[in-house]
């Protein structure tokens, strides 16, 4: 069974159809890149998979391990193993990163029928994970993303990914707002989390990110559809020729 199946998905936002029948199949261990120009519907896809309110699915389905994902609340999806790394992680003043991570992990564990982690147990776990990703401990004491640089915010997303151990990670424009050094650090973090059980969907406008996170498959989106799929070389082809050819095709 596939891990994630998006079948002929049609999505509207405020009466305007953004996705016009999108199909995508992701199996465990695979890394898929979704590329496309601004407005092609890449971020809409990531939001709909995570369950963000404000999108109306008019047709098609999304299955996660064969289950209807669209029937689930966002928190149920998270507990099942769907993780969205946000393009713009929000700042939450007054909530420490440490408290947020502890609350979130225990909420997911509770939903899965697993035991709750006590503060010392959690501390031990989060320290290990932070260390493995070279994330300084003091980041955990600060308000969630408050005063974080662009790079720190993305590292916080990767820290969560490592901590929650999801089955599928959707990385929405992870490269936006990062300089080349920050990008490399973030990509290293993602690569460290690649595993045969875990799939990743890397959404990006630029080929640059794919120099660091090498995909197994590349899909080109234009005007709400996947217009071309191929191997990693497709990204290089795009870099040379641009998106214009696909916009005409779509």
């Amino acid at each position: 069974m596939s891990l994630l199946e998006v079948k002929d998905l049609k999505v509207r936002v405020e009466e305007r159809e953004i996705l016009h029948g999108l199909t995508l199949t992701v199996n465990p261990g695979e890394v898929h890149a979704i590329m496309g120009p601004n407005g092609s519907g890449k971020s809409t896809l990531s939001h709909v998979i995570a369950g963000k309110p404000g999108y109306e699915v008019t047709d098609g389905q999304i299955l996660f391990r064969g289950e209807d994902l669209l029937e689930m609340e966002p928190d149920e999806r998270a507990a099942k193993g769907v993780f969205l790394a946000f393009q713009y992680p929000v700042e939450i003043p007054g909530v420490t990163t440490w408290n947020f991570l502890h609350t979130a992990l225990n909420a997911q564990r509770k939903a899965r029928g697993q035991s709750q982690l006590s503060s010392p147990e959690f501390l031990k776990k989060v320290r290990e994970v932070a260390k493995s990703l070279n994330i300084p401990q003091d980041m955990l004491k600060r308000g969630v993303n408050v005063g974080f640089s662009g790079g720190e915010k993305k590292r916080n997303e990767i820290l969560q990914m490592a901590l929650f151990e999801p089955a599928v990670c959707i990385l929405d424009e992870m490269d936006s707002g990062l300089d080349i050094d920050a990008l490399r650090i973030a990509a290293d973090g993602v690569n460290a989390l690649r595993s045969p059980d875990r799939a990743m969907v890397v959404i990006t406008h630029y080929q640059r990110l794919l120099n660091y996170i090498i995909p197994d498959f590349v899909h080109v989106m234009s005007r709400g559809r996947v217009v071309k799929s191929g191997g990693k070389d497709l990204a290089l082809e795009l870099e040379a020729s641009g998106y214009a050819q696909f916009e005409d095709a779509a």
Partner: protein
Amino acid sequence: MNLVLAKNETGRALSDSFAIARDRLPGVGKVAEARSAAFEAYERAGLPHRRIEDWKYTDLRALMREVLPLAPAPDAAALKRAAAAVKLQAIRGARPLVLVDGVFVPKLSDVGGLEKGLTIRTLRDVLETGDAALQAELFTPDNANPMVALNSAMTTDGVVIEIADGLVLKQPLQIIHVASGPAPAAMFTRSLLRLGRDAGVTLVESYIAADGAKVYQAHDFLIIAIGDNSRLDHVRLVEDGREAFNISSAVVTLGAHAHFNTFGMTSGAAVSRYQGTIAFAGEHSRVETNGVNLLNGRQHADTTLFMDHAVPHCASREVFRAVADDRAHSVFQGRIIVRPDAQKTDAKMMTRALLLSDDAEADNKPELEIFADDVTCGHGATTGALDESLLFYLRARGLSEKEAQALLIQAFVGEAIESIANDDLRELAIAATRRWLEARS
């Protein structure tokens, strides 16, 4: 004409009630005269209503309708119910001073082994046998505010606490107001706390209901005088029953180099109004006054503060957070006056309201009157809903809707709670917030 206005049926009933109660009210001579004058002032005004600017958002004629008859002194059964409630609410390590249905109850209080320099007496005792100066001080409030006037007329008991120069008390004092019975009744209390020079204390005030108490009115008044170089940490927790009314006032005066850190949390009572006046009488003093309202159902809570900067070089900070769900209504009125001599005043006020439902309401009315030219003053007020993007972020990380809301509400009120200087009291406020959030989900 005013007399006619007040002579409605309920006014008449109260008038009779005052006549009957008079024998039970402590104090003769000047005190009795002050009571009569206060009652007349109240009768002329009647319950405050929305056409009086100060009561615009809290129309007691509509919300409270009438003043209930004076509660009878608690009997053995009432005391038993009160004792059970006190047991749940008393703060560990604090010295409890318990008023049940407006009457001080020594048996439930701890007035033994008082530190040298600490005096605790009941209001009744002071009014019956105390010196005239103290009695006069207890009746200084003017009768312009009808609810203060009513309290002056009807007050039955309270605690009078005096802390001598140089005494810094380690043990907090906790005044606990308990309503004991199911019969609708009103209690009227008045307390005083005086700190000498170089003194310090922590005072907690709790308003609670015993099991079975339903419709009641708690009318309270607190006079605080903080001497030079003294410090008062103060927390007020209004956890009255859901059908109760709590109408409380406080008048605080600070000497020089004094420090007053006060925090109020209202999660109980159907209707509550807290009116505080804080006056700087000495230079280089500082006040932090912070509050949180946690309201749901049809609760109505009004905090009306008046910060009076009369002397130079003083600082005040007001941080207020209101959370209103369902059809609840939160009111914050903050008036700051900087008088002509009060140069170098530093006064700031920030109020924020969080509305959790479309039918909830929050009114913020800041007023700054500045008559000095070398001052730093500012205020800000915002009202809004929970940020959808934050909620989604938390839900995408596995928190249920209620859990995500709870975390954001805790963060929202956190800023006001953070300002509580005393660690134990801060924990108390955090725990009260958590209780409210748990009851919600």
